[in-house]
């Protein structure tokens, strides 16, 4: 009786939560992509992460900041310390004040965070026609089904229908809630040259940058899943032992 009841309560409780998630805005339902990081044993594809970082650097970073990330985090992508120093060295950051009280520019170090393209949110919004390009550090976690959503958005640009009236600097995207988006289509075939022979297509670019952004929002995913596996295996075995103990102790009662 009570097990049935527990199951019943659990089902009743989780079903509506799930339904709550499934019902969304008016945008087209997302297509579920198969990601390298999906599932209980999924991991990040290092090559895709590096390609994704290249896309971010060469395309997204001109408008979008990633203020939660530092160059030192790039070790997760498979870069070694010298490579990271070299990457950081390509950027310059403001430091100071020096002995004379002046701020000065110096090459970035691994401990520095990714420099933002604009001085502040106001400047970023002003330079982008009033629409603030969101910080991308957590963009995947900050959207329902973030990976599929961002992939959909990057590949979902279409010709606007005749009855849609878009203002200057607005575009039509089938996955954007409300369809109207202020970001111009950021990716196009052949735009970024890959060195590892991966296809230079919009789809490939989008998939790679989503892999990178997913990592950026959830850098400990692999450790988390590994730790979880150990913890759960331990608890399951412990639970069996405990069940045996309980039965032993209760054997003279029943």
């Amino acid at each position, binding site marked *: 009786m009570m097990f049935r009841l527990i199951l019943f309560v659990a089902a009743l409780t989780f079903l509506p939560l799930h339904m709550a998630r499934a019902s969304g805005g008016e945008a087209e339902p997302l297509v579920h992509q198969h990601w390298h990081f999906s599932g209980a044993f999924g991991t990040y594809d290092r090559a895709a992460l590096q390609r994704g970082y290249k896309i971010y650097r060469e395309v997204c970073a001109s408008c979008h900041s990633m203020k939660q990330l530092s160059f*030192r985090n790039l070790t997760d992508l498979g870069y070694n310390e010298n490579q990271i120093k070299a990457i950081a060295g390509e950027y310059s950051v403001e430091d100071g004040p020096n*002995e004379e009280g002046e701020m000065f520019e110096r090459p970035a170090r691994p*401990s520095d965070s990714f420099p933002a393209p604009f001085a502040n949110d106001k400047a970023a919004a002003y330079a982008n026609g009033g629409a603030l390009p969101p910080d991308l550090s957590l963009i995947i976690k900050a959207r329902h089904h973030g990976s599929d959503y961002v992939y959909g958005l990057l590949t979902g640009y279409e010709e606007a229908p005749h009855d849609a009236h878009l203002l200057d600097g607005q575009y039509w995207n089938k996955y954007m809630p409300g369809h109207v988006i202020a970001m111009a289509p950021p990716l196009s075939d052949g735009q970024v040259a890959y060195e590892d022979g991966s296809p230079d297509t919009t789809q490939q670019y989008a998939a790679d940058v989503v892999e990178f952004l997913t990592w950026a929002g959830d850098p400990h995913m692999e450790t988390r899943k590994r730790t979880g596996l150990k913890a759960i295996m331990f*608890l399951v075995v412990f639970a069996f*032992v405990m069940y045996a103990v309980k039965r032993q102790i209760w054997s003279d009662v029943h």
Partner: protein
Amino acid sequence: MGHGAGETRRDFLQLTAGSFGAVGAGIALWPFVHSMNPAKDTLALSTTEVDISPIRKGQSITVMWRGKPVFIRHRTEAEIEEANAVSIADLPDKQDDAERVKKDKDQWLVLVGICTHLGCVPTGQKQTETRGEFNGWFCPCHGSHYDTSGRIRKGPAPKNLALPPYEFLSDTLIKIG
């Protein structure tokens, strides 16, 4: 608990369960303890680069490294001489001046500016501050005197002022940490 044959399985089971509990609790404790150790961003900030070209002879500057003051003194010839004139055997913490500077750079003395007694910051960095009886640094908290090599000479401090790990990247640039 008895020791009859029928009880052996029970003992074994309970012992196993007990060990599982103890091991599990022990392992679960570690993340809590380790979370108090320096975080990754803190560890990443553990080097500081300093341009020493503006420090004139006889002057000192103080820079921050890992949240602690680091003293960099550009020593005069007289100060170097004074540091070398001491008989090592008489020192509480026996150390030659040569061990405390880089080779051929003995005009530069780089020290962690924290008294080895109880962690106060000694005076003597500015010309106007008292440098103690040995013309180095003086800790006002409990009266420790350090010489021109940063060695303890008098007072309660047990050790010489510590040397941070550092290297000369060029003649005018040092990297601490």
